[in-house]
């Protein structure tokens, strides 16, 4: 199985330890990943700003870089949903290469559970963990069930973390409200963005969260920015970091 790792550009630059943890977790489960050096960004910042002509070359670059792998794994639900759900318009109808890459691009927790079939993890993490449901993982990739929809109640991330010894989870009053990051929204609508972030953090504080985690560093970058400014005692970790720290 040839597996490539996609590390979102801002993770590459600012959160290298998240990428390294992803590698560690994948290797722990027997997957030797490759990291194609030419990769940069999936193009989401441009696409979400409405700038489709500017997003297009990045979509093409992504497909060029990652064609030829059985799977592309990324520690980000948001980037994966960009590739899987929003690349269509950048390619000709029926384009085989892009369709293949899009289909094979997976978020980390999805890859671990659905492809590798990971059910048990040996490790311990004796902390009270608050899971932040990143919207794109939740409502685009359906990695867990959103509170609006009246179907089953899956939660891939929680299922994985529940395997760890000593871990407990915060019970939030609003299970899956958005953190307010939203890409350029975070700056363009700064007031609402920060209020949303504050509200999420208050919910976690009230629930006793000591470690705040998610499947997307972008949400966590925003929440961590508020947490550090307010000097709160909450540790922010991508779930790959938790897994790699816990697996002993």
């Amino acid at each position: 199985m040839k597996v490539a790792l996609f590390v979102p550009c801002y993770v590459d630059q600012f959160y290298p330890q998240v990428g390294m943890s992803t590698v560690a977790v994948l290797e722990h489960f027997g997957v030797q990943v490759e990291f194609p050096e030419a990769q940069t960004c999936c193009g989401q910042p441009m696409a979400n700003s409405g700038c489709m002509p500017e997003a297009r070359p990045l979509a093409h670059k992504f497909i060029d870089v990652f064609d030829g792998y059985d799977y592309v794994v990324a520690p980000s639900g948001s980037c994966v949903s960009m590739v899987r759900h929003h690349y269509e318009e950048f390619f000709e109808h029926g384009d085989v290469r892009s369709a293949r890459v899009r289909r094979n691009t997976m978020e980390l927790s999805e890859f671990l559970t659905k492809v590798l079939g990971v059910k048990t993890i040996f490790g311990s993490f004796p902390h009270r963990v608050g899971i932040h449901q990143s919207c794109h993982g939740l409502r685009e990739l359906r990695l867990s069930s959103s509170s609006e929809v009246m179907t089953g109640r899956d939660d891939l991330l929680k299922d994985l973390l529940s395997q760890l010894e000593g871990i407990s989870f915060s019970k939030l009053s609003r299970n899956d409200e958005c953190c307010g990051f939203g890409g350029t929204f975070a700056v363009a609508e700064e007031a609402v963005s920060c209020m949303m972030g504050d509200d999420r953090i208050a919910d976690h504080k009230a629930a006793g969260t000591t470690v705040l985690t998610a499947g997307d560093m972008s949400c966590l970058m925003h929440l961590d920015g508020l947490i550090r400014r307010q000097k709160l005692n909450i540790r922010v970790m991508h779930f790959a970091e938790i897994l790699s720290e816990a697996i002993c």
Partner: protein
Amino acid sequence: MSHPALAQQFTSDRTRAEWHDRSLWFVREKRDRMAHGVPEWELLREHASAIKLHTMSQLPHYLEQFEKNAAARGIIVHWAETADDHNRIVYEILQRHGVRRVVKSKSMLTEECHLNPFLEKRGMEVVDTDLGERIVQLRQEAPSHIVLPAIHIRKEEVGECFHEHLGTEKGASDPNYLTEAARNHLRERFCKADAGITGVNFAIAETGGFVVCTNEGNADLGVSLPKLHIACMGIEKLLPRASDLAVFLRLLARSATGQPITTYSSHFHGPREGCELHVVLVDNGRSSILQSPDFRRSLNCIRCGACMNTCPVYRRSGGHSYETTVPGPIGSILAPVREPEKHSSLPFACTLCGSCTDVCPVKIDLHHQLLAMRGHIDAKHLLPVSKKLSMKLVSAVLSRTWLYNTMGWLARVSLKWAPRFAVYNPLNGWGRQRELPIPPSATFRQMFAQRRAGRKSAESGAAAPVAREGSKSREGSQTGGQA
């Protein structure tokens, strides 16, 4: 003003913004409980969406069918292409009957057409009889929500408003007392009215009748006394069959306010004896939305307001920050479809969280339409120049790996060495309330390359540890755990 500016104003009164957020979240939670009580909820949404899509695809046919059947029941049907046409038609009917005083139940369409000022300018009195609408009318404001028009007003403020206009005791804010005062005030208006205007929730093609849903019974009261009833509806309000109501009435009340059914679902199938019943069918841009593949589905909307209640931005910025008749997610599509210049900031007043899409009872893919609308705004050159330029620049950098590496290095180094006041300057929208990430000494790709190089040299010496599925990989976890 743009949405960000108005939103900032609203949030600057944090207590109020928090109260507003909680009030609407309360409604959203009620909706969740109600929806949970219906095992076939998701199936109902599927049905509703399919019925609406079908109806919209055959709209001319169903409109004609409706007109024919309505006429057979003695309903007088009018067609209005624009808001002006609508207002003129309504005015002419009223004028013909020598109407001076009108009572009107809630109708977003008449808000959209600005019917009230049109009639008032021509010497008629129009009284909105929905309690919330009456409150905003007395305060000379626009509704801030399509189902809960006065959700932004606290009960103390209602007390002040009623003290001024209805003569209630000063400082009184007991909801029961205030509601009673409003009832008495409205009773009087109902009795004196010469005509009643209502909206339409659902019109039924096969019967030629229509349904109006209210919780206060004000539509029924408003059209039971006067001899003239005018019902105004957008052409998208049509359903093919009476049995379709079984799907929509169940979804509407639960989604809107978390009630199992609206208190009054009144069916109108022709005029009372000696009275006249008119229906005005309004296009006002709907047929051009129908022709747009990207936004067509927005016409499925049954105006339940659930997307507003769930929207984390709407809850914290208030309905007036949208400056539209219909605010929130659906309004951020409907308004810029018609007037992109005026409403170009609305599709961006959204984090693309997708909660609206999941809550919508007719399964409108709201957040995908909002994303598509952003592309339309860009294609029409309506993006702020600074935004477009920076996106061009970033795209150029990200398209070239070497340039990306260089610029990334530059960003990290300058973030590391620049003094705090330079980084957290007033222009840094990120940094006003948030810290930036702490720049690491190396990028992921550098760390990864180093690690692989290290491993290669180890391999050439002794056998390297091979990680097997389910086995422990010391090296891996140690490297990863340096958070």
